[in-house]
């Protein structure tokens, strides 16, 4: 398709895709390479279809991290804007928000990335953040500062031209929006996908430009590209100016702690979902027995973390905490054995357990999506299956002990 001749369009003040890089004490987190991979794929398409001059730009704030810029380039960035300052060693929302917003508004940076747009550049066209807690908060404050739209927890992205009628955006008229980022967001149930768009208001009574089109991206969803040390890119040093008032926020102490729930040191994980609902207390007691039989740790699905049941036994209710959620809104696990009890297999849950070596699902419904994600599907109610399975496991153990 030929490039669209739309240089007079208002959104042409907005160029490039900026990816905000997240690090922890100078270590780049895996999500950065996933974001860059998806940015690369999207902009490769964009470069062919619209303009070869718009770039994937990594934005890195830190202290003594300049040597890491090359790594970002090898993973797909065309350019890195690097802000070096000892005060940026650790993430602080206020300072980071200000520096990133300055960078987003900075013409000189854009000029060094692509001189062609130096005159009209106002801000990035698109912006990506990580959808972990730090990135979710940062994206919210940056976009509040830039007064534009933000979609959170995205797991699919498409750039396309869109025609739509909207009461507020277009006063009900059919209008075309070029180069629009379609941001797909799974809802909390994991079964519905909402596509969110960030669009300029073209309503004559309320005209307003909303750029960048920004989103936060769920870690673990997108694939990085293969790193290539021969990839060429520009590194742009951004001179940071900090407000001394902002530095009155002091990090006094920082320590790394292991989560009290340690999935990594267990070979088996037993997880449960809404399938326990007929008699939650008794069913969780069954899961607790299975857990003890296997020396396993216990996980839950996201809906369970909303504490839907009244469970009197405090030991069992301890399983119903957000820290135990397996999936995109919780932990990612890869045990030798994963047993999904009464879990239907919403996409978000699957993302958290699909790396498990062997998966067994117990579910009465052979149509539930978990069937496609397991190695053994035991068709049945957990109330019926678990007592038999636990008993058989005990007998197996007894036989092993006799043999030994």
């Amino acid at each position: 398709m030929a490039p669209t001749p739309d240089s007079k369009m208002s959104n042409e003040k907005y160029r490039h895709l900026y990816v905000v890089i997240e690090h922890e004490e100078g270590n780049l987190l895996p999500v950065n390479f996933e974001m860059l991979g998806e940015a690369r794929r999207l902009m490769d398409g964009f470069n062919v279809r619209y303009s070869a001059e718009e770039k994937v730009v990594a934005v890195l704030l830190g202290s003594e991290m300049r040597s890491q810029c090359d790594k970002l380039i090898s993973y797909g960035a065309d350019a890195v804007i690097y802000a070096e300052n000892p005060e940026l060693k650790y993430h602080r929302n206020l300072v980071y928000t200000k520096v990133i917003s300055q960078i987003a508004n900075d013409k000189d940076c854009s000029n060094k990335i692509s001189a062609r747009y130096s005159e009209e550049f106002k801000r990035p066209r698109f912006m990506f953040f990580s959808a972990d807690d730090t990135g979710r908060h940062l994206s919210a404050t940056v976009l509040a500062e830039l007064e534009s739209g933000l979609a959170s927890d995205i797991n699919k992205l498409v750039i396309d031209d869109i025609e739509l009628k909207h009461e507020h955006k277009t006063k009900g008229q059919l209008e075309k929006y070029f180069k629009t980022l379609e941001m797909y967001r799974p809802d909390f149930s994991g079964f519905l996908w909402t596509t969110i768009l960030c669009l300029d208001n073209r309503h004559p009574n309320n005209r307003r430009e909303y750029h960048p089109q920004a989103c936060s991206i769920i870690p673990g969803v997108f694939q990085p590209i293969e790193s290539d040390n021969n990839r060429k890119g520009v590194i742009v040093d951004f001179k940071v100016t900090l407000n001394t008032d902002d530095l009155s926020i002091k990090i006094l102490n920082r320590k790394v702690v292991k989560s009290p729930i340690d999935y990594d040191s267990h070979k088996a994980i037993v997880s449960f979902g809404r399938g326990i609902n007929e008699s939650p207390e008794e069913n969780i007691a069954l899961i607790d027995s299975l857990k003890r039989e296997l020396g396993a740790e216990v996980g839950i699905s996201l809906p369970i973390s909303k504490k839907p049941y009244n469970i009197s036994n405090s030991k069992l209710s301890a399983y119903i905490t957000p820290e135990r959620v397996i999936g995109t809104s919780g932990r990612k696990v890869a045990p030798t054995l994963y047993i999904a009890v009464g879990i239907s297999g919403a996409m978000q849950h699957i993302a958290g357990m699909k790396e498990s070596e062997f998966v067994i699902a117990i579910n009465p419904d052979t149509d539930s999506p978990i069937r496609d994600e397991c190695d053994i599907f035991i068709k049945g109610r957990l109330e019926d299956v678990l007592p038999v399975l636990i008993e058989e496991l005990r007998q197996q153990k007894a036989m092993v002990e006799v043999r030994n």
Partner: protein
Amino acid sequence: MESSRLKISVIIKLEPDFSEGNVSYNSDGTLNRAETKSILGPHSAVASMAALHAKVMHGADVSVGTMGPPIAEQALQQSQLLCDADELHLYSDRIFAGADTLATAEVLRTGIDKMHDGEKSDIVFSGHRASDGETGQTGPQTAWKLGYPFFGNVIDFSVDVENRLARVTRLVPIQGLYDVIEEIEAPLPIFITIHPSYKPTFTTVSQRLSFFKCQKEARDRAALYKNYLKTFTAQTLGVDPKLVGLPGSPTIVYRVEKIPRAKTSRMAEIIEGSNQDQIRAVAKKITDMIKVKEI
């Protein structure tokens, strides 16, 4: 000294009640909103408890606000019962409907500025995220619009009222790899979202007595919550109608669809749960798998 008394504000949300007997799901697993009751969201409840903690520890005036339909005043009442608020704000206007997080934040920051007779709040609390929307954006965006430094994932806090300094402890999960616990000092005012694992503790006898006194006062007040309630429309709140509701929302929901099933990644062997021989074979497989790895 009265002027140094802390001014605490809380923003809360009426959310679907996900508890057993109240929540209703459609057969496809999605939430049946028409059949599901609404309550004060659990994260909002935790934020309300944090406000009471500040009140017990330091003495404070507490205001609670929410944007929502008229029925959201129930959430305000439930919050008052938890935090013994002196003032309840409901921002309710049909033009607020359909707002995204930025347009919601515009209403909330305008409302917070009207709390405490227009005096600045020292600390604003909000929940970690809503149980239904789950974006976690409204808190930080409201903070930014207020011009308050934002601290998320807070599991503990204390205030040095005299020097107007707060100390907050944050629990930051690093992408499921490990957690970081961070202790921060910041001058007031600040905006805090409270982590769901937060548990207020009252260690001394006088703190506990004060806590019980506030609880009793909260019960009395919540029984007459309408006496504390102020309802604002867009006009009485004084917001620019172009910055709220759908007209003030940069984002729109373009499409809602069912998530298509992913490609089959494993070939499942299907076993009848009633077939004991097959269950025995599974038990043997499990035992072997775990045992072999142990050697």
